[in-house]
């Protein structure tokens, strides 16, 4: 599982309200939510993103409410992966469940600047800067998380697993 893109940088304690404010929670279509992603802190975020770009953040990314609209909005704008020093627990589950991978790397979180182009190999647990070849390690994905992402989210994962269970 390789991801390539430009880094968009966020700080510590990025909460679910700043990812998608509550006033936009009347819908849950990811493309509709994407129009309002980070609207209060980075207006026009969607227009700045090239499909596949990567968010790099500090501690406790996604803390606050259990709203699944938060990772849906981020996925909707075209972000392929979030690297952070740490994630809030419910956000972590919600992101994998909808097929958005997250990975922890305190060193990359500190070192990478906005606009850096990086390549991330999740299976090898490695982040590489395109221009300089500098490398950072990241925590390997637990097997279950990898299976969920490979399936495209928890719904597909459960359907596939159920399918297998019925095969004699």
């Amino acid at each position, binding site marked *: 599982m390789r991801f390539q893109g430009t880094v968009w940088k966020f700080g510590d*304690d990025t*909460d679910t*309200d700043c990812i998608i*404010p*509550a006033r936009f*929670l*009347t819908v*849950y279509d990811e493309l509709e939510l994407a129009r309002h992603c980070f609207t*209060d802190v980075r207006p026009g975020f969607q227009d700045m993103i090239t499909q596949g770009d990567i968010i790099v953040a500090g*501690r*406790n990314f996604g*803390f*606050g*409410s*259990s*709203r*699944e609209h938060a990772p849906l909005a981020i996925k909707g704008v075209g972000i392929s992966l979030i690297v952070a020093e*740490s994630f*809030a*627990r*419910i956000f972590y*589950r*919600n992101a994998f*469940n*909808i097929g958005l991978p997250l990975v922890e790397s305190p060193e990359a979180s500190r070192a990478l600047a906005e606009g850096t182009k990086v390549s991330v190999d999740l299976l090898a647990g490695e982040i590489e800067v395109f221009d300089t070849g500098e490398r950072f390690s990241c925590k390997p994905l*637990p097997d*279950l998380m990898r299976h969920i992402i490979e399936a495209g*989210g*928890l*719904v597909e994962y*459960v*359907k596939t697993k*159920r399918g297998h269970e019925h095969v004699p």
Partner: protein
Amino acid sequence: MPMTITEKILALHAHREGVSPGELIEVDVDMALANDITAPLAIDVFEAIGTHAVYDPEKIALIPDHFVPNKDINSAQQAKVMREFAARHGILHYYEIGQCGIEHVTLPEKGLVIPGDLVIGADSHTCTYGALGAFSTGVGSTDLGVIMATGKTWLKVPPTIKLHYEGRLSPWVRGKDLILHTLGMLGVDGATYRALEFSGTVIKGLSMDQRFTMANMAVEAGAKNGIIEPDGITLGFVADRSSRAPSLVAGDPGADYERVIRIEVDTIEPQVALPYSPANVRPLSQIGSIELDQVFIGSCTNGRLEDLRDAAAVLKGHTVKKGVRLIVIPGSELVYQEALQEGLIGVLLGAGAVIGPPSCGPCLGGHLGVLAEGERALSTTNRNFIGRMGHPTSEVYLASPVVAASSAIRGRIAGPEEL
């Protein structure tokens, strides 16, 4: 290997001899919960999976509480989706307004959670049921949709932080003050992925209502669950409400804790969390003069009978300061009826409070008390993020019902000793 109460409940539900922190396990769910905001998305997920029946119509609770009585057409549509799903699948624990209240007040009082249970809810404050000696945690809608289909979910076994409270509580200091004080120590990510175990002689002496308040706010430190080992007080509460036999799980001697934090309560005074974080906590004596526009007493944190008793005890013989709005919302229909029978509602009305119908109400800025630009509120709820109860420039201070009632009388943040 010796285990904590959290590890033992998880092991039982994973059908394993033992579990250790960090392991991923699959567990059976005793009760799955959603509300009028999170259920519609979970129902979509359930239908996408393509199972025809829910795993057990007696083990799902669907409670309309966030935007009820419905505040607008969209919220009415969402409530309708949940109501129709409940009817289609014969969900036993679906209730209309008038027969329930806030989800985390309603489930315990109807006896739907007992010690040893494993409860998963699509609401971050599902951790409330840890007060009953159950494992309970919040998830998103997709997780809940899958649970409605399969009855199972995956969990990572959390390490446990033990909080040990010793000493004697000062008069007017409540569970709310203990948890706010603790949040001030831990910070908003101080317990991320952890279990918080509340223990010590002080906890043993707390009523169920105060224990619910403490477990409710475990998530404000990022915790997966908050838990209190069941005792005589727990059993007394459950015996009146459920016919199921509780599983009295207790931690083993020698169980491994990531940290043990000892808290001496003798010097703890009423606490207040300032904007914009529930961990931005100061003792009441250091708050200074903060004038208020609105005071709210209610929510899944502090909308229970004992909270209304505290409010009425403080307000009796006083009136709400001119220019201040005091909103009181009983946490459930049952709390409302009991408060009425005890004469508490009369005292509150006499003091100048408005009583709202059981609902989450203004806690999340939904309805029944939304703040205008620049307004300041003191609230017995659990979060005070930017714009949480209304306009982004409004401010929310968090405290106990005792401090809330005292502040409503003075028109500024105050304790009962000032009255």
